[in-house]
């Protein structure tokens, strides 16, 4: 027996070693090249600025595109050869004459990032979602962006020049402790939440409400997000559906304000109602997912999928490749508009002006229209940059989803609200195939009317957070009162049986 096992093991090991060895011998050149760059970097470390950046996983262009992936816009080709980080290092040295070394790392969730920060990890520039940078602002952990950063006369200030007027409006208007977001945060990507659905099974009307999550018509065929904030938002939308869609509410002069209040309602009654609602959702959904929903949607295991618009675009693109059509709906009640933004940390910068300059340059470099397009293509999310006078970002939207010249039915899709601030601006109109209207383009740039009913989800204080987290645990747990009577009887029988058996065998032994 030993001999056989040993023989099998050694065979297996040999196979394991052989494959990577073969791969290594094919590509020794690139490995050597990497080694030398690493040596160079360490040799000249003294006068280089080290910038520690932490971002979401898969959230920046890492380069290495194939030739055929070139984005051939009218204004020229765009292709990602190197990673954005390498390109930034080269650009910074060329533009400002100083070497910079970016130490790039990633995080999985906003909470992970916050945990890492409180446990003592040090970063200069991070990119959390809006509720997390609101929390960091409130806790006074951030360094304000410099005045120079917003100086539009410097051609290298791509962010200030290119940021969409719509996004700028939000970042200027929203405040924490009397200070606007824009004082500390520069946007990166944004989007809304909605429902990706299979139009052959689900009608647009059924998909356009949060109530689809517990619609028994699609029992075990819808998915919901596996995190408390997204689920809470959807649940509030569903329970307050009647109020939120009533004409009086919609025509209220303070509609936006009231909507945001309603969607951020954390009164004990609402939390209880959300718990009850999510309980019914749990018995109706296919899964609570973070990532698997995309694949389950494409393979047809589910027919509707609560999704962030960026991942929604990706899902629809992937399905298209299999000739399988999916659509995107923004619920009528409200949609959660979210932003990921760059913020600089006090603990990292420690008042080093050179470092702050490099950090702001990093934001600007990622806001340069060609780089914006590279990032958008690579990540699949929508950038907050509209490009100012640069036409390429609009061209990119057209390149992606615009109608071909021989298309029979087309429709005009207005993007003025995002690109110029004027919803009716004729210059920012994309002509798309008619069936695109509720598909990718509407996930990439949600239509004006969907934006009108968007609401930001604020961060909750520790007390409320604890209650909501407890609510979430209650939903996911198995309540003891749910255990049916027969199960209790069975359990008693089994336990009784085991105890009886144990005692009997012990007795017997004692007699022996």
């Amino acid at each position, binding site marked *: *027996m030993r001999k*056989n*096992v040993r023989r*099998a093991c050694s065979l*297996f090991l040999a196979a394991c070693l052989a494959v990577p060895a073969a791969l290594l011998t094919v590509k020794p050149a690139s490995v050597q090249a990497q080694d030398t760059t690493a040596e160079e970097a360490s040799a000249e470390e003294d006068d280089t600025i080290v910038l520690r950046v932490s971002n979401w996983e898969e959230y920046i262009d890492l380069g290495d595109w194939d030739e055929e992936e070139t984005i051939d816009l009218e204004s020229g080709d765009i292709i990602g050869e190197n990673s954005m980080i390498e390109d930034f290092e080269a650009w910074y040295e060329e533009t400002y004459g100083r070497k910079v070394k970016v130490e790039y790392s990633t995080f999985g969730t906003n*909470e992970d990032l916050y*945990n890492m920060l409180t446990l003592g990890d040090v970063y200069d520039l991070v990119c959390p979602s809006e509720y997390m940078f609101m929390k960091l602002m409130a806790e006074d952990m951030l360094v304000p962006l410099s005045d120079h950063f917003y100086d539009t006369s410097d051609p290298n200030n791509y962010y200030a020049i290119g940021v969409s007027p719509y996004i700028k409006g939000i970042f200027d208007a929203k405040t924490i402790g009397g200070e606007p977001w824009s004082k500390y945060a520069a946007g990166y990507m944004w989007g809304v939440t909605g429902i990706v659905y299979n139009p052959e099974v689900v009608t647009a009307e059924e998909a356009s409400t949060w109530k689809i999550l517990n619609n028994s018509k699609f029992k*075990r*065929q819808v998915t919901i997000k596996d995190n408390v904030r997204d689920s809470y938002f959807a649940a509030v939308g569903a329970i307050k559906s009647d109020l939120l869609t009533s004409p009086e509410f919609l025509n209220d002069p303070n509609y936006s304000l009231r909507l945001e209040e309603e969607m951020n309602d954390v009164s004990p009654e609402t939390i209880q109602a959300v718990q009850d609602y999510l309980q019914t959702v*749990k018995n109706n*959904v*296919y*899964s*609570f997912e973070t990532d698997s929903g995309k694949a389950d949607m494409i393979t047809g*295991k589910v027919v509707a999928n609560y999704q962030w618009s960026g991942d929604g675009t990706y899902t629809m693109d992937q399905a298209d490749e299999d000739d399988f059509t999916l659509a995107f709906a923004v619920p009528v009640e409200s949609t959660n508009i979210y932003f990921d933004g760059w913020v600089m940390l006090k603990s990292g910068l420690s008042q080093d002006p050179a470092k702050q300059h490099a950090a702001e340059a990093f934001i600007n470099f990622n806001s340069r229209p060609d780089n914006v397009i590279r990032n958008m293509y690579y990540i699949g999310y929508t950038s907050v940059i509209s490009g100012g006078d640069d036409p390429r970002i609009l061209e990119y939207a057209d390149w992606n989803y615009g109608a071909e010249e021989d298309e029979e039915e087309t429709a005009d899709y207005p993007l003025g609200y995002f690109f110029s601030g004027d919803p009716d601006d004729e210059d920012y109109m994309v002509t798309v195939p008619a069936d695109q209207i509720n598909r990718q383009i509407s996930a990439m740039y949600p239509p004006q009317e969907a934006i009108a009913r968007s609401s930001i989800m604020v961060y909750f204080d520790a007390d409320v*957070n*604890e209650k909501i*987290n407890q609510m*979430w*645990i*209650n939903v*996911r*747990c*198995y*309540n*003891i*009162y*749910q*255990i049916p009577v027969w*199960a209790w009887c069975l*359990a008693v029988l*089994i336990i009784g049986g085991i105890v009886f058996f*144990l005692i009997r*065998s*012990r007795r017997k*032994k004692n007699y022996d």
Partner: protein
Amino acid sequence: MPVFGLTRKSLRIPYVLFLAVFVVAPLFVLIYYAFTNGSGQPTMRNLTGFFTDPNTLGTLCYSFAIAFVCTLVCLLIAYPTAYILANSGFRHKSVLLMIFILPMWINFSLRITALKEILTMIEGNLAMYPFFNAVLGMTYDFLPFMILPIYNTLSKLDPSLIEAAKDLGADETQAFFRVTLPLSVPGIISGISMVFLPSMTNYVVLDMLYNSTYIMGSLIGSYFAAYNWHGGSMIALILLAIICLFTLVTESYTEEDSKGIGGAML
């Protein structure tokens, strides 16, 4: 006798260090967190909270139910398998055993992913049978851990005992129930403890097979995700207590049983 100037005592140091750093120290951290609250004050609230909340208690019951059914199914499959393997006249017995152990060489999340696709083909919609799928997935995952210890005890069983039983007039069935089965109890118990306890906490299988209900493992995880180290530690401690209790009860039976055959176990 010292080898290379090392006495037996000094050879002990690495093990003691390892135990201290990776077993004893974390245990104390766990106990500290379990009995304190957010501001570091000692409290019993975590303990009483667990036993008064219908949700946590229900989750404990649900985990028990999954683990119980999974262990039972494993045992029902593993015992006959191990018995046949141990008693077969096949010359390359080890090859047969290898076939059963082979899946253990493949990463379990990979195996569960494959199982997921197969089940989808058979059941259509996986999420319709959450309990069944959870049990199936865990049985698939833990079966080798049940087969191995039982096989070990059975293959070490002295065949002359059964011959003696037959000489004394027992038929096949009687010999099995009066001799083979009682003597293989240590293997069974060792198998049960290797299957029952892990299947109470192995929530990854549930996640991957779309069972949305928490079991003990995911409950601890959800407490930690919400920065509630104290509640999570308490649940971990309670699980530890259950394991200790279980081991104590089974120990008292196996010790006596195993005297005869020299404590044959894995």
